């Protein structure tokens, strides 16, 4: 056993070495790259980000849409999760597979589907113009609205998964006890079920925000050239302008935003657990 521990430790170090070489070193190289301009340490690329109105606007948009989408996703996701959790064990499985199925589908293909749905001549605009004839409909595709719809669709399975899991953990006996004690169904929900499902909500919020803020493909396909996220700016800086340090700096700012927001969410989660 003592000897085995050694083998396990060696195995762990081998994996860690692989990760250091192919994950940590690249990140650190990019990190240093963003702080050097013409061979000297400089914050030039970061000052550019926080002074350029274009960058600031996109930064603000990224955050705004991510928060909005997380909020919308949580409401829809909670409703679906609650609905499923009220079903019989067998039914739950079927519903779950159905609502989680997008997770197993190619994101590129899903977004392509949304492109067709949201386009000028797409199904949604057709329905709108049929409902209010004379108007030409609103161009949904290539707008932040389209991006928001796409992100909700992208994040929803992850949200449902987390909230559903926490709802499943709520002890049925507690709900029955509350009902037996004369609380109404609505009150039981708000006083028993909802507070007990908070951990799932926080987890869902974290993953949803992290996915939204760092998404690259959704704005690329549904936002068009003018409705970008920070990640797209970073890509453009590197691929279109060849400005590696600027792209690196942008992606590091993005990383810090995600880490900070996740820390704030986990701070609130811990506080809610104590309360």
């Amino acid at each position, binding site marked *: *056993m003592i*000897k*085995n*521990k050694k083998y*396990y*430790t*060696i*195995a*762990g*170090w081998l*994996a*860690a070495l692989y*990760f250091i070489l*192919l*994950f*940590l070193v*690249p990140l650190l*190289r*990019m990190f240093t790259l963003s702080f050097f301009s013409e061979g000297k340490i400089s914050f030039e690329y970061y000052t550019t980000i926080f002074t350029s109105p274009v960058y600031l606007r996109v930064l603000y948009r990224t955050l705004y849409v991510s928060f909005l989408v997380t909020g919308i996703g949580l409401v829809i996701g909670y*409703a*679906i999760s609650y*609905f499923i959790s009220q079903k019989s064990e067998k039914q739950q499985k079927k519903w*779950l*597979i159905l*609502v989680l*199925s*997008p*997770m*197993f*589908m*190619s994101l*590129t*293909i*899903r*977004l*392509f*589907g949304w*492109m*067709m749905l949201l386009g000028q*001549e*797409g*199904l949604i605009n057709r329905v709108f113009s049929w409902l209010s004839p004379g108007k030409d409909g609103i161009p949904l595709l290539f707008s932040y609205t389209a991006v928001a719809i796409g992100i909700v*669709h992208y994040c929803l399975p992850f949200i449902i*998964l987390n909230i559903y899991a926490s709802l499943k953990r709520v002890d049925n006996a507690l709900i029955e006890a509350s009902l037996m004690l004369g609380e109404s169904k609505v009150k039981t929900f708000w006083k028993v079920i909802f507070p007990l499902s908070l951990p799932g909500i926080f987890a869902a919020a974290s993953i949803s925000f*992290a996915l939204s*803020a*760092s998404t*690259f493909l959704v704005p690329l*396909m549904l936002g068009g050239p003018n409705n970008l996220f*920070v*990640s797209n700016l*970073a*890509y453009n800086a*590197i*691929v279109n302008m060849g400005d*590696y340090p600027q*792209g*690196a700096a942008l992606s590091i700012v993005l*990383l810090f935003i*995600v880490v900070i927001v996740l820390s704030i969410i986990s701070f609130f989660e811990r506080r809610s657990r104590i309360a």
Partner: protein
Amino acid sequence: MLSKKSKLFYVVMCFAIFFILSPFLITVIASVAGSNMFHFPPEQFTLMNYKNLFQDEQLWQSVWLSFCIGVTATLLAVTIGITAAMGIVKGQLPMKNVIESFFMGPLIVPLVTVGISFLVFFSTFQAEGTIWSIILAHSVIISPYVTRIACANLRQSNEMLEEAAMMLGAGFWYMFRTVLIPSMLPSVISGAVLSFLVSMDEYTVTVFLAQVNTVTLPIRIYQYTTIDINPTITAFSAMIILLSFIGLIVLEKVFKIHKYMDF
């Protein structure tokens, strides 16, 4: 009889399900539409797209490339995942919590950040754009799915089985082969399947590394849908969607994957 309230709930749910499934439905419809794929409703029925699909060599090349990358990267990821879990759960590593988060890092660090760092890293060896740069990059970003499930498996595994094997005269490697790996296999396979799917569909990191001769499937799909629009892609997408649904149902029937859905 359903109460008014739960009827309402059902209606809302139907909308939600429709919302979730709508991009798939429209793709299937568009695949047999004779007109412009961005035009609704379709004007005629045709199987033209499916006919073209099987003659589109470019597309199938990308499928094959992504498949090869996916398989190799998954094999690497499984190796990383198992060895990492062995070290985290049963080894003597310093600051195990930090190391575990480190292995989960690719799930937290935005993929764009990872993608740029790989580009910077591989370009120092002039290796960006090679198939191996993509494989290595994928192996890192998909490994958390295996590592996580392997850790969970080892944590709840029975230490005694290992002890029993040793008592019966098995050395570490014999025990590893005959006891540890077989006991981890079911969960590692489900992690590997997920990893493979993620690799097959990876766009954000890959796009920084890919070049003309390494256009993976998601990049090809993107090209066909936005840059040089090609309706063949509707047939391809519809096929993938159907295959995914069938695969999902089979996986659920065989592996009960809804139990593993915890990512």
